[in-house]
């Protein structure tokens, strides 16, 4: 079997294959629902309804999408430069820790000043977390996939240590959780009475900012050149190592905003289950979005919708929520395959 490249795929190919991927995903979900003893159409209907069937459901989906937009952007930015940042989870927790450190009365500032200061500090913390692995990569050639991935576990254990020790809420009845943020440090809701907070708006703004950076600035140009062909970039005088470091700072900062936004916008304190793998899901989001920052917003809302919808479906139809994970995995695999096959056809022999 071999792949023969197609220079200019037809529109039918461009649209048809992703549609087929989506259909395959839905088919897979239906089979699983059938296997679990439920009516597949009802199950899928319940997922859609649970994700977008009411104002409450929709806002819940957007809330869930917020951290995914940040981590998706973090991954998309890094992957563009072929910097394989698998550590968005660690950077997210770094942002969350700093948010709690500064948001529990350490800084006597008014809310309008305090929130930006905390956000910035969180970004710096996340950036620093990624800086180590990247310097190891550019200076010593250490594979960043390994270092960033392992850093996730170090970070999680470190947070656990903090929550059992110095950061433990004295009023927490012994639970490993941090004290709650002061009111001034909390992100307000966009519309009073509805659960959506300003973190979502910040996520959209971040996506726009990343898009502008990538298409309009020299840094974005450098990042794309380094990612597409590092050898040509180096030859042309682009400081490849420095571009990698800048990319890492941006990527780590974006991932940290996910932690900041979850703590300051939604949870109000830090626990060990702050992130159910947002850092890893960010990779799926970024891949589905083809690393396009605006696509990340769409992909994050889609992924969040599947999870939120599956949660609510599971309560109603008795199909386990794991169906969401399988849906996500199927969607990713079929979509990646579809995109590959858009630009090449398989020849047997």
């Amino acid at each position, binding site marked *: 079997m071999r792949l*023969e490249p*197609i*220079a*200019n795929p037809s529109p039918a190919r461009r649209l048809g294959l992703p549609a087929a991927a989506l259909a395959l995903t839905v088919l897979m979900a239906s089979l699983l629902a059938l296997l679990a003893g439920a009516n597949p159409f009802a199950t899928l209907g319940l997922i859609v309804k649970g994700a977008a069937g009411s104002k409450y459901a929709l806002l819940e989906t957007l809330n869930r999408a917020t951290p995914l937009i940040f981590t998706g952007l973090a991954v998309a930015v890094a992957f563009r430069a072929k910097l394989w940042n698998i550590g968005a989870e660690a950077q997210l927790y770094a942002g969350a820790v700093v948010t709690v450190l500064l948001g529990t009365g350490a800084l006597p500032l008014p809310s309008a000043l305090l929130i930006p200061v905390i956000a910035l500090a969180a970004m710096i913390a996340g950036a620093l977390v990624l800086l180590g692995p990247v310097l190891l990569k550019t200076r010593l050639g250490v594979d960043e996939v390994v270092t960033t991935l392992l850093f996730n576990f170090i970070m999680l254990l470190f947070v656990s240590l903090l929550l059992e020790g110095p950061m433990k809420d004295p009023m927490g009845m012994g639970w490993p959780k941090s004290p709650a943020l002061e009111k001034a440090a909390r992100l307000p809701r966009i519309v009073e009475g509805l659960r959506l907070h300003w973190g979502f708006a910040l996520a959209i703004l971040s996506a726009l900012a990343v898009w502008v950076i990538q298409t*309009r*600035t*020299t*840094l*974005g*140009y450098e990042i*794309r*050149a380094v990612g*597409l*062909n590092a*050898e*040509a*970039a*180096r*030859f*042309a*005088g*682009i*400081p490849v190592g420095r571009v990698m470091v800048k990319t890492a700072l941006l990527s780590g900062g974006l991932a940290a905003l996910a932690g900041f936004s979850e703590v300051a916008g939604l949870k109000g304190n830090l626990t060990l289950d702050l992130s159910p793998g947002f850092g890893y899901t960010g990779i799926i989001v970024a891949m589905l979005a083809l690393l396009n920052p605006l696509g990340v917003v769409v992909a994050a809302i889609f992924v969040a919708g599947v999870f939120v919808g599956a949660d609510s479906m599971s309560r109603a139809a008795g199909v386990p929520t794991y169906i969401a994970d399988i849906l996500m995995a199927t969607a990713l695999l079929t979509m990646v395959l579809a995109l590959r096959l858009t630009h090449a056809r398989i020849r047997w*022999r």
Partner: protein
Amino acid sequence: MAPETGAEVVLRLDGITKRFGPLVANDAISVTLRKGEVIALLGENGAGKTTLMNILFGHYTADAGTVEVFGQPLPPGHPRAALAAGVGMVHQHFTLADNLTVLENILLGTRPLLAPRLDAREARARVARLSRDFGLAVHPDARVGALSVGERQRVEILKALYRDARILILDEPTAVLTPQETSALFETLRKAVAQGLSVIFISHKLGEVIEISSRVLVLRHGRLVGEVATADTDRHRLAEMMVGAEIAAPRLSERAPGPAFLTLTGVDTPRRGNAPGLKGVTLALRAGQITGLAGVSGNGQAALAALIGGLETPAKGSMELHGARPADWSPRAALTGGIARIPEDRHRTGSVADFTLTENAVLESYAGPPYSRRGWMNWRAADDFARRIIETYDVRCPGPAARIRLLSGGNMQKLILGRALEAGPRIILANQPVRGLDIGAVTFVQNRLIAARDAGAAVLLISEDLDEVMALSDVIHVIYEGRLSPAFPRGTMTPAGLGGWMAGHGFEREHTRGGADAA
């Protein structure tokens, strides 16, 4: 060596057609090869030579047409079928395992994978016989990694002969050889046809085609545009057939050299992987002068190009740019020092395949005005620049927003050339600037380099094509294992004389003197 016309037909390609989308790579091509003859397949890059051979070898399946070997039709799409039928191919890029010996490489794939042990005695005797009969001197127990390029090619040919190939296909076999090695190869081929083998010799070098072949088939744009007996034609007519138009050879006017823009004195650079570093290199690049660097590939050309291009710094010795030692040395320092660089590998080093022409055009100059200000790109200015290059350098393309990977090698090279020359360089480092280009593009690039030289630039032309170096250079150095020969002014050396230096003769005596400037 022309065979009697009645000789047995050993290979027949009949009406081979292959399309890639709208592109017709092979258009109803028919080729007949008889026993004991050498035919040449001549054509520019992209003429369809490689596609045709890939179809013969079953790597592609033809849309129409048939392949017959020794009268038996070959099933399409079976790479092993051609081998089994007795067709052997020596690729331009060798397919040998460096860490195995010559004998092991030859035996590789001829025996069952799990055979308890190699009974090498019989095989060794057979290899020895073949190498004697065909004049392919190479030690069977030498590690392939330690062999020269010419020797490796001999191993490839031995490998094919060992598998009883009766038809040998050689794809651009002389591209990596010294003139002496080329004559040895031709000697081998003559012996082979005398013993009844048949050879297809793929090349774009006219002189060699005329020397070795009895018939020439010329391909152009996927069509067979001519088939002539070699005796009835000459270089000029073949070139015209190949290009479809008349061509003028580049001409250098007399010009007195100016001051040295860049000088190297006793420079050493470290070895990088398999590529040797420089050893005590002394060189002056002068205004209004093309300095040619001849040599067999892999003798330090890459190290010299990396040094002047800003990717490498001297470990020993000194480098002066415009009369001063540069404070720091990087690609960007080279660029600001007025050095334009045309890299050896335009796909991997010279361009970003998935970038547009505009993005590629400003790859070296994006960091300052007019293409960017305070970190913000000015894409309009960049587009204008790309358009200017496209127009001035005749880059055939859909437009500045097209991705550069869609361009042919020649057009890609023209964009890189334009990017380099539009910066108004005082020094031009041209590393294999015309390799793989069709004749039209070759002439274009060479004339641009000459024009830059006439306008007072110092040009360093690195090439493995001795004819090119001799035609274009005011002075010639030969590089061998990282050392530089003295400078030979234009017209003072014959190809054979330079070939001797390329094979390393003369360096024993000369290298201590360190290439004194004879100009």
